[in-house]
Structure formats: C-alpha cells, structure tokens
C-alpha cells in the first residue's frame, strides 16, 4: 500500500513536472478517443433519433441489435478490424494497422452502439409535444431536432459520458489495432495493461488515477454546461 502511494505521488510528480513520455501517452489517449467520439456522435444521434421517431419494419430489431452490440468485448472488435486491416485482409492495402487511425476506427466501432442505445433511451423519454410544438411553431426538422436534444440533454450527456468512458478505458481494440507501440500508439489504458503485466502494479494504479483525473475534469466541465440536475414538472 505504501508502495502504492509512493507510485501515485511519483505519477503525479511526473504529470506536473511535464514528463514527456507520460504526456505523450496521455496525448495519444486524448487524441484518439476524442476523434473517435467526434466522428461517431453525429451519425449515432441521428440514428437514435430515427429509431425513436420513425416507424419502420425492423425498428425493434435494430434497437435490440445495438443493445446487443454493447456486449461485444473490445478485443473482439479489435480482432475483427485487425482481420480487415491486416495485410491479408480486404483493407490491407491501406496500411492502417498499428497506427492511430486504426485505433480510431476500433474506438468508433466501440462507442457507436453505446451512443445509439443510450441516445435512443434518451429520445424515448422526450415529451412528444416537444417535437410537435417545435414543428407547429415553424421550426425546420433540424431545428426541431436540436430543440428536442436540448430538452433531453441530461440523457444525451449521460450517453456521451458512457461512450467516452467506454473508449477512453478500453484496452482490447487499442492493443490489437494500435499495437501498444511506445510514442506511437501507446495510450493510457494499454500503458496500464503493460505496467500490470510487468508486475508493476503501483505504476498501473497511478496511471489509472491520472486517467481518472482527466475524466473527472472533463465530466465536471460538461456538467457545468448542462445546468442543474433537477427533476422538474
């Protein structure tokens, strides 16, 4: 335990003394995960909206499907894209394997179902009159959509945070597709996995705390934008 607190202190020391390796790892985590989220979020929200407001055959099947995809281990996603991107795979010519792009692709595949499933639950909870009122007051479909999104922003934010949590903390896909190459594709979770596999548990935990700190800062700032978390009539 003492060991642990030492390692934590050391990790924070490295963090704030601007240790280059550590910041690089953090930078890769941030870049890859935020890119993946940014790419996934719009289409996912649109799909969630369509699944809530449109009526078509197979709608419930699609919803079930996305809920099911939440149960796919990151390593299976990683593996699937590995086989696609590998030299012998159909997309081998792109030479994407073991690059950050490959990690981004894997993470998109990971957070997309989460965004759709949770986003759908959020849209589902919206008052139907919100859409009607917006439309009848002359809002374009896009504006009406934005209005509903504002109404359910708590739910959408929760979806976003859950998706963020999923991509920032996953190891399977980053490991398979990125290869955990120092300075190139090693991000915080794969670095943690590495330290752990070395038996350097304290280092692993300390890195975990760094990750937590980042997530907490992000969270709190998002909550700030969201306003009061109160139940209203």
């Amino acid at each position, binding site marked *: 335990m003492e060991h642990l607190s030492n390692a934590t202190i050391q990790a924070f020391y490295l963090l704030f003394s601007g240790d280059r390796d550590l910041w690089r790892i953090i930078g890769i985590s941030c870049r890859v995960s935020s890119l993946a989220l940014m790419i996934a979020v719009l289409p996912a929200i649109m799909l969630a909206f369509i699944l809530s407001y449109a009526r078509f055959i197979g709608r419930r099947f699609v919803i079930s499907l996305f809920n099911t995809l939440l149960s796919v281990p990151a390593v299976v996603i990683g593996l699937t894209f590995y086989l696609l991107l590998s030299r012998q795979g159909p997309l081998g010519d792109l030479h994407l394997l073991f690059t950050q792009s490959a990690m981004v692709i894997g993470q998109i595949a990971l957070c997309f179902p989460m965004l759709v499933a949770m986003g759908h639950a959020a849209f589902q909870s919206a008052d139907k009159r919100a859409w009607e009122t917006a439309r009848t007051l002359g809002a374009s479909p896009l504006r009406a959509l934005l209005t509903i999104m504002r109404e359910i922003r708590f739910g959408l934010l929760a979806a976003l945070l859950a998706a963020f949590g999923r991509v920032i903390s996953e190891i399977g896909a980053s490991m398979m597709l990125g*290869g955990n190459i120092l300075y190139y594709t090693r991000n915080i979770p794969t670095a943690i996995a590495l330290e752990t596999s*070395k*038996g350097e548990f304290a280092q692993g935990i300390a890195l975990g705390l760094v990750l937590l700190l980042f997530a907490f800062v992000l969270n709190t700032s998002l909550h700030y934008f969201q306003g009061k978390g109160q139940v209203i009539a």
Partner: protein
Amino acid sequence: SPVNKTLRLATTTSTENSGLLSYLLPRFTQATGYEVHVIAVGTGKALRMGQDGDVDVVLVHALPAETKFVAAGYGERRYPVMYNDFVILGPVNDPAGLKHAHSVVEAMSKISQHSALFVSRGDDSGTNKKELAIWRDAKIKPKGSWYREAGQGMGKVIQMANELDAYTLSDRGTWIAYRDKTHLKVIFEGDEGLRNPYGIIAVNPKRYPDINHAGAQALIDWITSHDGQQLIAQYAIDGFKLFIPSATRTAGTDSK
C-alpha cells in the same frame, strides 16, 4: 491423496500457449492427485504473484530475476527444468543481412546499422530482458523510429513484426506455434547466447505458512523426475521438439 488438492502455478504465457502444460499437467494430476490451477501471465507478474503469496509455485524464464527472487527470500530454491532457445525472426529477404552474422551480437548490430524495423516486446518479460541484454553486449542504445517497443505478449509481437515486415526476437516455442500464421522466417539461430532456460521455484513457506508447499514440492519433484523430464523431451508440435529437459543437474543456476 493430498490434503490440499489444489495447487496454483503462475507461469509465463509461452509455456501455456505452447501447449506444454496441458500436455504435462493431467499426467501430474494422475500421478499425485494434485489439481493444478494455471495462471498464465508475464514473467514479471508471475514473480510478483509469488512474492505476494498468491500462488504456490512459479515456472518462468528470466534467470537474473529468478535469482534475485530466491535471494530476497521470496522463493525457496530454483530448480532448472528445461530450456529452449531464442531465434531472431525477420522477413524472408533479410534486408539487414543477418544471415551472414557470426554471433547474435553482430546480428543485432546489423539491424541497428541498417535501421531495419525491429519490434521489441518492451514488457519486461524474460524475452524482453534477454533482448536488452544483447543490446547491452552490443553496446547499442536501441532508439529511433526503427525500434518499436510494443509492450505485448510474444504472439502479438510476432503478428506485429509480420505486419510491419520487421525483425523480432522470439522464443522458439511461440515461433513454432505461429510459424504457419506468418511470412516471417527464422533468420538467425543457434548462438550460445540465445539459450532460454526455465526454472521452477516454490514460494517460500516461511513467508506464507499456509500455502500449498507440499503440492509445490510435489510438482517440482515430479517435473524434475525422470518421468517428467522424459515427457518434456517427448513433447513436440508437428514433429518440432520445443523444449530440452535440463533438470539432470543439481538445483541452482544452470550454466549459460
């Protein structure tokens, strides 16, 4: 039959992945009645589990670390079990010309001279430690974009080297298991400096009186016995022998 039937063995992924353990252990169970729970992790983590008393016995391949482990009193004694050897894998066309090297140090130097891509385990495993020792002997600080530290298991690193057309250092067991799945070939092998010895150490019962020391000793006794060694010698995948028994010598360190 024994009082405490379950025995926890922490070992490296290479022994587990090569299939050796699933070949040996049922026979051990038959002979002694102990059931072995295998926890396959990296060498560093396996030793750490022994140190913490979470397992009863460790089977690893990182001689200096093992010696330290025993010296620190974490383990009782180290018994040599077997060895296999490391090989340098690389693309068939061998861009750095390793084929003509006379020693492993020379071979690795060539890689760095040509700045040929090299994928390192980078995870402090036995194999990684071996690789770093060779770099040290060659007086080279591996750095630069040609040197990729992967931080993953052996199998993954072979796959990576395959994808990147890079060189890498692998233990023979994993290589044989993977040889059908890659374009890589053994480019350099057979040097004395590439030997990879495995040792088995019972966790010190003085530190943890309630661990299954009897079981650990039984496993050690069995695996270093004539029968056990015979079985190791016979183990092969597609006709390739993977391990050479080495327990004939007395307990302690085996010669380099």
